[in-house]
């Protein structure tokens, strides 16, 4: 393949560059680019790397707090969690690859996000994931569910990090475009964080890890194939993950970091060698020169173009202290990994690529990033939907049956089948396993720990992107509070449709505003994230899905709460106000088949106040169990607490002035359920609530093997459990 072929408009288009973007390239470099250069620009200026549609709006997110060590802009965010420790975390999407090849797509998604975290000097201690599939009836869904779950487990289990939480939902709007968002969390010493910024002229740039092959050279492959005389079989564009190599890479990198040899480090993720090298140079105001003849390759005859665009996995780039090369090499050889010095830093601010002694690319390094196109795309606000009066909706079935049906519906059914395929116990620190509100992971021998969760309710975001954005943050906040943690910071993964459509762009803009408002009000800043656009199925965008990954600190893991009812005869209290909000509720969607109405408004002041109240109950040891209320409302929360504890409850009282279905299934926000030991304690808590201005109501008592609600026939736990546990295994087995 020739490097200096004429660049035609077709070639430019095949590289995903618009004519005016190409013009910008010509203006920047003052000549026609070589093919390799065109490839480099296309990689740096695509949506994924340049955030050209979202950058303007992401600026609105609050990213600061006294405990934030590193906000967005590095491989992962970093917060101070006390005791000299830092928590390093980020979430990233692998949506499109997972639809093409679910196992490898999901596996390499996990691999990529783990690398982002350990690149910063942290040891990964937990992963989470957020999955959205199409309708269960869609012919591909079953295969995608099995493949994605196996891929996530396959990678994380082998790498040796517990997968402690996540979410999984189904909706027809994801039929042709599933979402696979993976989050990794690591721990480092607060003063031993590593960054991507290169320093020093003439320092060696080393390549580490696995060899480079022609993996994942996406759409651009076709362009290159057209210039390849050797007719070869059409190459798959999927990357294959090697968790074993990644585990070795982790250990080798950590050993090397200890030696003080590492000046800068950057993993090779999307756009591999190109973006990692450019980032290191540009951040350090240095030029970079690479000699591709030195790059360890898995295949023969790779061109400069292919090497610069390859997305082979399990690779790293580092700038080393001069003189430390031998020491570094010995470590990598011990771990059986490739090590090669492939270039050096320069003072030219140019990105120079050589192969076979020829210059294949010579570009201004800062401009590759700084001058990337930035779009202020037109957007329109989603029209407001009317609020639904709870009294105007007549239930289609009895409330007891509706609870059973909801608990066995795809979104609410137990995800045990999923998380039993994930090693959630390795490292011996998982205090709260998947299945609760937030996972709790102890740090070392304790007593400190982290509370981790991932949340979003796409149905709300579709109905009202602003409120939906707020709600995603509020729910992550509540989940952390409910286990006894202090919410600290979030990472987000913004999954949206085509930003060139003003309606979808509007969803992105308003969701970001909602996230931002909630983060500000709740002191819960954004420290890292990822944007995935152009998610659509048959020309229709997915539901707007701004996934939030929340991290909280737990001061003492022995003082946490779980959602399981603990003992018979305990008193159940509802904290927060119930108005019976049925708009965009799960009940309305699943039982009445209507996805309508405004979603529940989120009162951030109430979230804060109620959260503080719950925290104090848990800290004082008064709450014997705790669960936040989210979609499905009070009824689902009660059912989940009963099943988790294998202990029924008798409810005597529901929030007043509402029809039962609205009291039970309304999705008003800022609510929690707690249990307390006895009546005396319940009275104390009610008094405390009233003086704090927090609505609280005593509902009834735990006990028995049934869930009994006022005016409804009792539901046996056995029936509830069967509905809840059977759906997913039967579904994947093809039995339903």
């Amino acid at each position, binding site marked *: 393949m020739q490097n200096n072929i004429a660049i035609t408009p077709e070639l430019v288009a095949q590289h995903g560059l618009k004519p005016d973007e190409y013009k910008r390239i010509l203006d920047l470099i003052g000549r026609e680019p070589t093919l390799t250069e065109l490839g480099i620009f296309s990689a740096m200026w695509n949506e994924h790397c340049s955030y050209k549609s979202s950058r303007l709006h992401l600026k609105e997110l609050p990213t600061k707090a006294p405990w934030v060590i590193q906000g967005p802009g590095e491989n992962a965010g970093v917060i101070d969690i006390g005791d000299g420790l830092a928590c390093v975390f980020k979430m990233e999407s692998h949506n499109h690859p997972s639809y093409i*090849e679910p196992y*490898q797509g999901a596996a390499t998604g996990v691999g990529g996000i783990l690398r982002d975290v350990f690149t910063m000097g942290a040891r990964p201690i937990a992963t989470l994931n957020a999955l959205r599939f199409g309708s269960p009836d869609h012919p591909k869904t079953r295969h995608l569910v099995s493949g994605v779950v196996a891929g996530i487990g396959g990678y994380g289990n082998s790498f040796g990090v517990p997968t402690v939480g996540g979410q999984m939902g189904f909706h027809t709007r994801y039929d042709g475009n599933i979402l696979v968002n993976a989050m990794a969390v690591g721990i480092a010493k607060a003063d031993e964080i590593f960054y991507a910024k290169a320093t020093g002229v003439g320092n060696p740039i080393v390549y580490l890890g696995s060899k480079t092959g022609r993996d994942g050279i996406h759409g651009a492959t076709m362009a290159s194939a057209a210039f390849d005389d050797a007719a070869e079989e059409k190459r*798959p564009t999927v990357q*294959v993950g090697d968790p074993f190599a990644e585990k070795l890479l982790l250990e080798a990198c950590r050993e090397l970091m200890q030696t003080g040899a590492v000046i800068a480090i950057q993993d090779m993720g999307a756009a591999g060698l190109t973006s990692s090298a450019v980032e290191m140079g540009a951040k350090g105001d240095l030029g970079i020169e690479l000699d591709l003849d030195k790059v360890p390759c898995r295949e023969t005859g790779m061109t400069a173009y292919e090497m610069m665009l390859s997305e082979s996995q399990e690779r790293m780039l580092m700038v080393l202290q001069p003189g430390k090369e031998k020491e570094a090499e010995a470590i990598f050889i011990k771990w059986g990994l490739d090590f090669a010095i492939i270039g050096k830093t320069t003072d030219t601010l140019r990105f120079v690529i050589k192969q076979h002694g020829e210059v294949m690319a010579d570009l201004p390094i800062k401009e590759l990033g700084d001058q990337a196109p930035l779009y202020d795309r037109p957007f329109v606000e989603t029209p407001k939907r009317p609020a639904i009066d709870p009294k105007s909706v007549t239930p289609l079935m009895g409330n007891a049956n509706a609870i059973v049906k909801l608990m066995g519906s795809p979104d609410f059914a137990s995800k045990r089948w999923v998380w039993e395929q994930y090693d959630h116990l390795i490292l011996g620190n998982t205090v709260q396993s998947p299945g609760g509100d937030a996972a709790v992971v102890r740090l070392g021998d304790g007593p400190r720990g982290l509370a981790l969760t991932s949340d979003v309710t796409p149905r709300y975001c579709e109905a009202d992107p602003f409120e939906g954005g707020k709600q995603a943050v509020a729910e992550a906040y509540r989940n952390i509070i409910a286990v006894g943690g202090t919410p600290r910071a979030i990472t987000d993964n913004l999954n949206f449709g085509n930003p060139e459509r003003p309606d979808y762009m509007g969803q992105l803009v308003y969701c970001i505003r909602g996230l931002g408002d909630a983060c500000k009000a709740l002191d819960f800043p954004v420290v890292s994230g990822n944007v995935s656009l152009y998610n659509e199925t048959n020309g229709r965008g997915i539901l707007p899905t701004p996934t939030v990954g929340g991290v909280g600190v737990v001061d003492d893991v022995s003082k946490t709460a779980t959602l399981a009812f603990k003992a018979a005869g305990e008193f159940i209290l509802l904290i927060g106000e119930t108005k019976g909000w049925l708009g965009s509720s799960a009940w309305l969607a699943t039982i009445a088949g209507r996805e309508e109405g405004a979603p529940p408004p989120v009162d951030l002041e109430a979230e804060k106040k109620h959260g503080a109240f719950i925290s104090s109950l848990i800290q004082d040891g008064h709450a014997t169990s705790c669960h936040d209320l989210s979609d499905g409302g009070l009824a689902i929360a009660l059912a989940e607490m009963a099943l988790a504890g294998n202990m029924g409850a008798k409810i005597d009282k529901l929030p007043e002035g509402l029809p039962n279905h609205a009291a039970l299934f309304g999705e008003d926000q800022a609510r929690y359920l707690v249990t307390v030991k006895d009546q005396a304690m319940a009275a104390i808590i009610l008094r405390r609530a009233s003086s704090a201005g927090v609505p609280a109501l005593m509902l009834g008592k735990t006990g028995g093997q049934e869930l009994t609600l006022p005016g409804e026939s009792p539901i046996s736990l056995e029936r509830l459990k069967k509905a809840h546990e059977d759906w997913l295994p039967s579904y994947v087995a093809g039995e339903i």
Partner: protein
Amino acid sequence: MKARVTVTLKNGVLDPQGKAIEGALKSFGLEGIESVRQGKIFDIELNSSDPAEAETLLKAAAEKLLANMVVENYRIEILG
């Protein structure tokens, strides 16, 4: 009738298994081994005796389940 379906990775697709085995063999001092790629075989008993029919059946089996057509190729042999 007996048949064998052989499934191999497409060229260029990373084979972590093969790579690890290759490394192990080399470390055992088995010099002369340059590279290893791993594949799978499925030995299948069929109750048909018509080769053409068997071929159709096996093709369906391979494409539906035995091979992942995104990264793998397959070959069918009727062993009689």
